[in-house]
């Protein structure tokens, strides 16, 4: 099962792995972190000029961390734009993924949130620091092995 983009990437000799299609029939590809920056530039040149969403999740306890990019090709006079979903997996020990901020500027706050919640450090991001949690926070709250600190909160007020 191979989508259009996958076939195009194969034709140009770019390394990737097809993960099939999601429920809307959008092609999903896996790309290695070390290839991701160059392939992001290639995809931008190919025509994916809109990063619709960037998010991250923890795949499994003790497993990999994933960073997900939804790309769309916006053109005039097209009512069914081409879309693709890219997943980049990084190891939990040293999660480093190249930032796509310099390709799609809208990745700025999204990558900061992914960094804040899962601790994926995006190389070459201009100001990678916590965005939701206080800057002195310890730990990555959305990882599956995160243990919440026993902070006091008012629970019984009437």
């Amino acid at each position, binding site marked *: 099962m191979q989508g259009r983009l996958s076939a195009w990437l194969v034709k140009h000799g770019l390394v990737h792995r097809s993960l099939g299609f999601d429920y809307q029939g959008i092609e999903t590809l896996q790309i290695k972190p070390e290839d991701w920056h160059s392939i992001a530039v290639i995809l931008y040149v190919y025509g994916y000029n809109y990063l619709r969403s960037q998010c991250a999740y923890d795949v499994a306890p003790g497993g990999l961390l994933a960073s997900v990019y939804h790309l769309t090709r916006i053109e005039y006079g097209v009512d069914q734009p081409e879309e693709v979903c890219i997943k980049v997996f990084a190891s939990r020990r040293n999660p480093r993924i190249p930032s796509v901020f310099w390709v799609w500027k809208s990745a700025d706050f999204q990558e900061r949130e992914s960094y804040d919640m899962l601790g994926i450090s995006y190389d070459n991001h201009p100001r990678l620091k916590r965005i939701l949690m*206080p800057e*002195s*926070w*310890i730990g990555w709250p959305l990882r599956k092995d995160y243990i919440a*600190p*026993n*902070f*006091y909160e*008012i629970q*019984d*007020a*009437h």
Partner: protein
Amino acid sequence: KRELRKRRAFFISAQQQAEVEESQQVNAQEEEQEKMKQQGKQKLPRPVEPQVNVKSKNMSREYGGQWLSSVTRHVRIYAAYIDPVTCEFDQTQMDKLTLILDPTNEFVWTSETCNKVYAYFQELVDHYEGAPLTEYTLRLIGSDIEHYIRKLLYDGEIKYNMNARVLNFSMGKPRILFNDGLPQNVQ
């Protein structure tokens, strides 16, 4: 090593004078305190030198207009020296932590229960020695003290102040049975 300042409340001058007296008494009682510790009955907090002529420093906008703190309802911890009488806030003394205990007077405090909390505070600060001085650490300390206050309340050592300005029983409704299992009268 950080020194500690402790104070019960901001606004009641009588209690603040009592606090000064307490610390003098503590000076006198130092030897007794060691014995008490050996017996393990009640810990007294270590004495703290009161400072004179404290001025507010580093509070203006040029210094960022912010301070390191952990603020919950019953425990406010500031990384600064705060004068108990004049409320001057000296941010140059970041090596000290000031604890303001229950500023809204939700509980009835005696000097004995206050000292328990102060001693626990000093114990916690000793435990966290070497940790970075950040809001996260302060909040860990403050939360532990809040849990300790809740334990005191559930053990019946302190009780709600029924004349408090806000009566919303933030640590649970008053109950008949306390942790010791004996029925007691609830105000």
